[in-house]
């Protein structure tokens, strides 16, 4: 991992911004590049730690096998579901037209 102040390039940041669906101006990208590079440089100190025989810990708990029964519970009404929708037609959420294919490859 790089420890220089520019761990990321403007291009890297622009790509990440698209992945994260954030519109950033050029000035914001430049600023973000500096800030993220610094933070990434800082967190890279974890490279000092020998974790070769350590498994990742995704949950602080050691619980397993938590389920619910296949029993129906009340749903929201359509009005409740659409209540906070920026645009809807009384039945469905409305978003700008999507052409053709589904989101996932």
């Amino acid at each position: 991992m790089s420890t220089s102040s520019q761990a990321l390039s403007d291009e890297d940041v622009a790509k990440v911004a698209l992945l994260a669906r954030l519109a950033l101006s050029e000035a914001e990208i430049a600023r973000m590049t500096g800030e993220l590079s610094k933070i990434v440089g800082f967190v890279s100190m974890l490279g000092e730690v020998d974790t070769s025989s350590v498994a990742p810990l995704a949950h602080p708990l050691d619980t397993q096998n938590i389920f619910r029964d296949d029993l129906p519970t009340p749903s929201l009404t359509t009005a409740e579901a659409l209540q906070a929708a920026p645009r809807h037609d009384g039945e469905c959420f409305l978003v700008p037209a999507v052409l053709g294919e589904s989101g996932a490859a």
Partner: protein
Amino acid sequence: MTAAPVYTTIIGLEVHVQLQTRTKLFCGCSTRFGAPPNTQVCPTCLGLPGSLPVMNRHAFELALRAALALDCRIAPFTKWDRKNYFYPDLPKGYQISQYDLPFSSDGQLEVVDPKGAFSRRVGIIRVHLEEDAGKSMHDEAAGTADTRIDLNRAGTPLCEIVTQPDLRSPQEARAWLNELKLLLVYLGVSDCNMQEGSLRVDANVNLHIPQPDGRVAKTPIVEIKNMNSFRSVERALAYEAVRQWEEWQATKVEMGKMPKQTRGWDDPAGITRPQRQKEESSDYRYFPEPDLVPVTVSDAQVAAIRAAMGDPPTVLRKGLEARWKISAYDADVLVNQGRDLVAYFEELATLVGEGKVASNWMQQDVLRTLNERGGTIGEFPVRPTAVADIIGRIAKGDFDTSRGREIFAEVLTSGRAVEEVVASLGIAAVSDDDLVALCRELLAANPKIVADVKGGKEQAAAGLIGQARKKNPNVNPGKFRQMCIDLIKGM
């Protein structure tokens, strides 16, 4: 001598089946098909702020059942992961799925053509459990710039089944899908109804083309989407194989020289079309789902599910063939109709004491009329005891098979018992004395036939059957014919 194939079509399938639970994978909303938009939603499946998922136990059990039926290894420890991407039918901005530790892997399902045209063992790479997305609807006719989103389907439990690229023809692919559907329907895992979206298929296909120098050239793999029936799958694969062959001949582009292409099947036009390449390649940034805890599966649990599962179609077929000495074809026809019809058949065959006759009656009479009437075999008014009764009387000689069919039809429409119908049709066994008398009467009236038979043409006696039945419809044609021949011999 068969020529070496010009190319081999290599097909792998990715199948999504909706599990037959009452409620969604992570919440208690109904999974019923066809409800008005956004009436089966709650904070969890809407992805509202602060909402949390909790795993549906029955969904996991059905998934285990499917995986065991597909001969998969069950992982003793499994977990869920977030697959992150933005799309309006995915309200959380991520799908809860399984990435590196799916609950099952390394299985297989064989498809055998009952007519013997092919037999293919298809490996299964993995089966995992994930949630479905909602539905986006584009009403291009209305000319609006909007897409409508219905989240009723969001959160429905899905099993994703990924095969090895072991299939070698569109026909095999279609047959395999039918076998998969039959299996999953038999096990009560899913109703596999493509029209309702409870089964979806994407296919990966390319060609292996032997070269003059002994090398095998491989065309780039194409993923085909938007096939809405098993027939479409077959047609799409057939089209695509030819298209790739023609493209190969024109361009000689091999696999690895370009990224995997996705094409959509256009059923009315009968072609595949390239789908728009996304600007960014999909980086799903998988990481373990922190809101769900992992699941462990014990050997005892697996054994219990296996024990409660019931036999899959392959085992049922082989069992019927062995127990009742019927053909593979016959066993296939019966098993395809479902567990209840197989049970009906076995009850009938047990009563009759024999399988072939019972199987014939099933196919020619029971199934035919069942399909005409509609309804299930459980609702079918003629029960195995009645059919067995008819078959028994035929065997005794009370009447012949064609008479028996009439009786069956009458029992079906009238609802009356076999005994009653037999009596009302005036069917009674013809006594030997009456038969002899009838024979003598007709022989006397037909000297030419007597002469023919005496001359060696025994089959001429059959010409009298029609007259005999006119006089007495209960005459058993076979018995009558033999009687005539015997009498003539004695003359």
